[in-house]
């Protein structure tokens, strides 16, 4: 499957004019995203997420490396025709109403806004802004602004959605609706590249994850694999001999369970542990991988000393 987004050894260094001072916002970042996937782009504040998204959209230029979107350079008109973009803290022309803003964006996309009333009404209903057609956007609440931002991103039925903090400013109900909407779009086969700090919600819809910290990529891959790998394994056994607690199961957490004992051990030592239990004549009832959460994975990656730069 062709990659929709490609970052190849991308570095971005900000330099101050007339000064030697420089700041590496991104260093040697490489990843790919395939069509039809939802990719969560994660990182703590100042990690370089917005810089990466800005370069992806052609607003900034990388110092070195290459970015391709639909196989084209960022900013290419043919690529932009297939992208719906929601910037972080979406800004708008305050004097416009929602239908006028959407008509304006339709014109910017080179489409005739005449006869687009049904499309606009449908989009406003989708983001629950129907009934506010005559209200100027300057009078919208933060959550309503975010919704109109999402509506404009969906306007031309884009193949790729680039969403920078799509649930920011929304209340819990609003966040749930946006996630529901994103899940629908995923089911329609859209490719979604989103950055967010609300990890439990991202975990529900993302199937790929890219984590960056201090401008460097620390983890990328399939979310399910990442959550399973490096996690702990739960082994249920009828008993655990004392000598094993000091040898094969050293460091494992052992606690009573319904049918025996529950041994929680690092995934890399599971084979050694099970073989030792069998050798000792114990009955291994079950073995289950313990899935960590995205939040745990994220914190583990970004808290690692020297994990990035």
């Amino acid at each position, binding site marked *: 499957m062709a990659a929709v987004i490609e970052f190849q050894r991308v570095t971005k260094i900000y330099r101050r004019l007339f000064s030697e001072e420089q700041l590496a916002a991104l260093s040697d970042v490489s990843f790919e995203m395939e069509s039809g996937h939802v990719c969560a782009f994660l990182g703590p504040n100042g990690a370089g997420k917005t810089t990466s998204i*800005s370069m992806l*959209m*052609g*607003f*900034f*230029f990388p110092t070195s490396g290459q970015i391709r979107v639909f196989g084209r350079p960022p900013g290419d*008109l*043919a690529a*932009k*025709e297939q*992208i719906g*973009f929601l*910037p972080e*803290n*979406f*800004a*708008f*022309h305050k*004097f416009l109403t929602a239908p006028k803003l959407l008509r*304006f*964006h339709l*014109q*910017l*996309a*080179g*489409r*005739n806004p005449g006869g687009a009333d049904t499309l606009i009404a449908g989009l406003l209903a989708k983001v629950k802004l129907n009934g506010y057609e005559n209200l100027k956007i300057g009078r919208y609440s933060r959550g309503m602004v975010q919704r109109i*931002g999402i509506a*404009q991103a969906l306007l031309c039925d884009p193949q790729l959605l680039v969403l920078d903090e799509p649930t920011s400013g929304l209340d819990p109900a609003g966040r749930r609706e946006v996630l529901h909407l994103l899940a629908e779009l995923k089911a329609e086969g859209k490719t979604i590249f989103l950055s967010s700090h609300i990890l439990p919600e991202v975990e529900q819809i993302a199937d790929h994850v890219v984590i960056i910290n201090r401008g460097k990529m620390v983890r990328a891959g399939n979310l399910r694999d990442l959550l399973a790998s490096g996690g702990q394994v739960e082994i249920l056994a009828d008993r655990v001999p004392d000598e094993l607690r000091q040898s094969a199961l050293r460091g494992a957490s052992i606690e009573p369970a319904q049918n025996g004992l529950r041994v929680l051990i690092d995934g890399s030592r599971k084979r050694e542990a099970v073989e030792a239990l069998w050798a000792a004549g114990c009955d291994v009832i079950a073995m289950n991988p313990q899935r960590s959460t995205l939040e745990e994975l994220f914190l583990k990656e970004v808290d690692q000393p020297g994990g990035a730069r």
Partner: protein
Amino acid sequence: MTKVRAIAWNTFSSLLRNKIVILFCAGCICVLLLLLTPLLVLRNGRSAQNPELMQMAVLPVIATMMQFVSGFGSLLAAWSAADAVAGEMRSGTILAVLARPVRRWQFLLGKFLGVQLMMLVFVILMLGLNYLLAWIGGATISTSPWVLIVYPMVRYMIYSALGILLVTVMHPILAFCIVLVMMIAAGLAAPANPETFMPGWLRTGLFYVLPSSNLLSETRFLTITRATLRAALWTDHATALIYGLDYALVCFLLAAWIFRSRSLSRD
């Protein structure tokens, strides 16, 4: 063209609501009203006694007012253009606009045309004011109005292109101040002016480099104190206007060239 037209219309609507532009215009109206008072007093005091004397006294007042309005228009054009681009960067609306399949030069062209649309409204209002002042002064402007529309428009194109060029590399207030200094310097360097403190080489240099407001002044052809159009060859008009359009085009192309590689972020 749909994209450029949409940006132009949006810019025009935005400028009509721009607080600084409104403040500019309110200030201009206040000054005009202050100048109108002595004009009306002069008219009432002299018209009955000596119409010739009235013409001589009133029309220079009108000429001064027109010069003021014209100079104000140039500054308004420069500020509006600079703010139209900088405002989008400041608020971040530029990100949503340029995420659409719009080229950067199309964005700048839309902004430029939006400003020209506003300046056209300004020029038409100014033209109305011309006729109103002439009527108050008891004179009739016996000329076709195209000179009064085209010349200021070309002048405003230059200043708005300059504003856009400067704002692609600096803060709009600094860009406006530079345009203001350029306007003053161009006025001082004009050959029509009496000797100034400037050395000859500097004066000549500035005259060639800066936009010549004098050359592009409609008052070259319109003698407001006689309220008639001086006879001029069409080649005179063509040369002056092509010079102005060329100056504006060069400024705009430079702005587009700089803007294409500029990083866009919320300021």
